[in-house]
């Protein structure tokens, strides 16, 4: 699969809620070949500065046919703070599209997408893709409503759409796993689960899926240096205890039963 390392012009940089941003850049080559669940490495430093040294991985949130790609990200440290200061018209280097995205399974007429917080980022493209072919159930959870400011992008895609927040500020009060438990009671027939979010949430989702014998794909995170398989830094232990998965190359999306969930991140 081709990858591109291109200077990309910023089209839009919007602060959606406190600390959460939507960045849109023009990178036609990357947009052209991007698949749901893939990510990019974005340069966050200015010009020839060497600090911060490394690029930051961000999931491809949205693509538009005119060559635009959007990223939905949260300011958590130095790199994302610098990125949030970049303005439309400026150039950022973007390397992508990277990794193995979600795999669509033909014989699964119902797909359940479970997103926690900004874990929804890689799920939008997937949801748009599934919508064309089968029944789409979207379950989203967060601490409060301001952590998921782009919820409208999802809610219009399906009538099977449910939100839970821990403080009850949006949707049902509780966890996204409560929503999943309800859904798993209601559905019949073959299903497939796709999930991305905090590790404990994905772990819980995996265990619920396994009890029901439903296959589950997870999108993992790991600290990355290169994003393209050069450094072997992005390791996550395998469930079969035979070494490690490499998130940037074999992932970020894995079959959940490949992952050693008891490993304390």
């Amino acid at each position, binding site marked *: 699969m*081709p990858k591109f*390392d291109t200077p990309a012009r910023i089209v839009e940089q919007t602060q959606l809620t406190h600390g959460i941003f939507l960045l849109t850049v023009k990178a036609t080559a990357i947009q052209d070949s991007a698949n749901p669940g893939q990510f990019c490495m974005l340069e966050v430093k200015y010009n020839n500065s060497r600090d911060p*040294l*490394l690029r930051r991985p961000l999931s491809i949130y949205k693509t538009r046919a005119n060559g635009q790609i959007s990223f939905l990200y949260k300011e958590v440290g130095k790199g994302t703070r610098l990125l949030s200061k970049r303005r439309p018209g400026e150039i950022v280097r973007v390397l992508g599209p990277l990794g193995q995205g979600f795999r669509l399974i033909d014989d699964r007429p119902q797909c359940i997408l479970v997103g926690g917080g900004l874990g929804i980022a890689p799920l939008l493209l997937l949801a748009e893709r599934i919508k064309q072919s089968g029944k789409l159930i979207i379950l989203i959870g967060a601490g409060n409503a301001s952590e998921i400011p782009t919820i409208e992008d999802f809610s219009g895609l399906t009538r099977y759409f449910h939100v839970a927040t821990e403080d009850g500020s949006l949707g049902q009060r509780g966890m996204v796993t409560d929503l999943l438990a309800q859904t798993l009671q209601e559905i019949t027939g073959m299903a497939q689960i796709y999930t991305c979010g905090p590790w404990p949430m994905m772990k819980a989702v995996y265990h619920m899926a396994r009890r029901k014998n439903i296959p589950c794909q997870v999108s993992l995170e790991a600290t990355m240096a290169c994003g393209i398989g050069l*450094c*072997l830094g992005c*390791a996550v232990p395998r469930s079969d205890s035979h070494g*490690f998965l490499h998130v940037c190359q074999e992932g970020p999306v894995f079959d959940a039963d490949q992952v050693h969930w008891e490993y304390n991140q």
Partner: protein
Amino acid sequence: MIHQKNQITKSPDLSINIGPLRLKNPVLLASGTCGYGAELDGLLDLDLLGGIIVKGISIRPRPGNPPPRLVETPCGLLNSIGLENVGIESFLRDKLPWLRNVKTSLIVNILGNSVEEYSEIAKKLDGAEGVKAIEVNISCPNVKAGGIAFGTDPEAAANVTRAVKKTTGLPVIIKLTPNVTDITKVARKVASAGADAISLINTLLGMAIDIKSRRPALANVFGGLSGPAIKPIALRMVWQVVRAVDIPVIGIGGISTPDDALEFLMAGAKAVEIGTATLVRPGTAEDVPAGIRYYMEANSIQNVEDLRLPDQQTLNPVRYPSFPIEGLPMQPL
């Protein structure tokens, strides 16, 4: 030498010899930062480089260390990959065929936990088509000597050198660790043990602590520091080793631009390796031969070796600027 313009009209010659090995230019990719080459397909034109040094290979596959394996530090990267690799058999079967089609010199980096392991891998590489040289990572723990790294013990380093030289006809480059008090001691020992060349530096031992979780940032607690942060130390060590041995020296450490590379060549390195910079931007190394050529042209320098500064330069008295700097009293630097 450098400022005599317009004397030479020929275009500069970037080719160099590392012992018996001829490279088309002095720019190589450093082990562990370029995978097995194929990962860079489409992002970097390997044909433009002097060579590629693939990820360190051991006799058996190694799973590596538990995560987190990486943490960024100011202008640097700490890693504790734990020398994860596919092992020599899989390398020869699965990785080498692709590398044979690349028009650049392939150097294989090897590692081991005993002298026997090193020579066993060297033997397996000896007849391998396409392999042009071996780089020996001696920063590994010597299991028989209680885990102390070969590279920190001049005698052990010499033993590895001799063992590898004995089992292979390929040029042998010994890669030194900077985690020693006097790097010239190890350098002299491996040179007299028969090394064809020396490369340095490997990563500097370091650590970082996450004050939020109150834990070491790396699962392995310690890691190897690389990137721009280590360049001044690497350059100093290269300068020292160049002046301590008669064999070619390859400079490594924090090189990310042609200017960085030129500093190492001026210190007397015959070639340079680019490591962490490739992780930051995969195409980095491509620009470096072109930048070196441009500098040589602009300064009418014909051969890479001519970039080397004379030793006595260190003995020159420091000269202060002869012009007054406004508002500042003149002070020794």
